[in-house]
């Protein structure tokens, strides 16, 4: 009976409601006890499948424990980031936590909600809070996944970058005293 029930769910594009199942199975003496089998499926699933209750009935889906493997199968080919996305990501990485208006200030152009959403979907940025200023803008930060993807131990490991003018004045002072590694630590604050 469990098998027949699985066959129905597996071949169906739509979720199956309890009523639909009853209409299909109640009159069939071979299918007696299907309700118990359904409860079992709901409770413990079957192999890599779990039965979930969705609008309109039940449907089988792959248990999320296989997501890593499935992600390899269902990859959309990785696409390069657009320049706008790249700049936005760079600003967030170096200036976090940061609001969208501030990102726009750094980039000098408006940042579309779509860009923020796409970066978010990739799992590299997230909202960490809100600034308590008018409009309560969201504060964007990079995620641990972002660090992990680029093998960065922390944000401290982001390469130091300075604007040219600032570099000029600092350089003279520091060069005489410190090696390059120390420069970062001394001048950043």
């Amino acid at each position, binding site marked *: 009976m469990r098998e027949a029930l699985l066959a129905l769910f*597996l071949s169906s594009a739509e979720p199956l409601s309890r009523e639909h199942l009853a209409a299909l199975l109640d009159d069939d003496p071979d299918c007696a006890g299907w309700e118990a089998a359904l409860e079992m499926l709901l409770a413990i699933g079957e192999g890599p499948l779990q039965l979930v209750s969705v609008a309109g009935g039940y449907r089988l889906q792959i248990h999320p424990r296989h997501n890593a493997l499935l992600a390899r199968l269902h990859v959309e080919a990785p696409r390069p980031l657009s320049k706008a996305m790249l700049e936005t990501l760079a600003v967030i990485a170096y200036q976090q936590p940061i609001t969208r208006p501030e990102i726009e200030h750094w980039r000098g152009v408006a940042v579309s909600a779509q860009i923020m959403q796409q970066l978010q979907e990739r799992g590299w940025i997230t909202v960490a809070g809100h600034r308590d200023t008018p409009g309560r803008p969201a504060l964007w930060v990079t995620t641990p996944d972002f660090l992990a993807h680029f093998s960065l131990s922390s944000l401290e490991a982001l390469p130091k970058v300075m604007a040219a003018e600032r570099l000029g004045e600092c350089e003279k002072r520091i060069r005489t005293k410190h090696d390059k590694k120390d420069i970062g630590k001394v001048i950043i604050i």
Partner: protein
Amino acid sequence: MQVHGQPLEGLPDGLFIPPDALELLLESFSGPLELLLWLIRRNRMDIRDIPVAEVTRQYLHYLREARRRNLELAAEYLLMAAWLAEIKARMLLPVPPAAEDEDFDPRLELARRLEALATVQSQAEALHTLPQAGRDFWTIYPAPHPDLPLAPPLVAFIDIVNAWQELLLRPARKPPPAHTLTNPRMGLRQRMVELLLYCRREPRPWFLNELLPPMADRLALAVSLLAILELLRQEALALVEGEEGVWRVAVAGVDGLGDA
């Protein structure tokens, strides 16, 4: 799917066709060639040695019957009749003595076309007998797999650094809408991000000592304090005064004590 020929096998031999059958018969044919093939098969004739006179006689009989019953026939049926008549006429001519081989048989082209159609019919029937999805078996409908992570974008780390460098090198811009740290010290930023995420774990204000790292050295303590102060200054965190006059820190907007 009606298998060609099979529903028609019940027809009586000879040329008589019941009144309703002719229409069905002609409808089941895709064209005159198929009618011709059907006639040849029904008479068990050899496709390579068609008795053209007899076939033509029968073919014309069906055409006349159709006309008598006011059935509409496509022009190709008349074209085929003309072709048959032409073959019949050429068969009456003496074969040129120099070319007695098969190629000069005027029926050859007709035989080729009938053979092609017969082949297609066999192939169609072969396809029809193959097991078909949704008729003879059911495939699975692919099970959904919710919340699959998207592939990370294709980007080299150095591009991010360069993008930031380029932004910094751009001509001076207006002051930012909210004051931000312009000389980023990443240790401080890391701590700020961590603090924000930490405070959001529960919607309540936090005591200062909850936010400072335990067993930390002086530098870590200093950075944490600085991060809290910076977040307060940026108004990402807010100070909340409790009943006993104790100040606590809350994520901006979390009104744990009703006055954030």
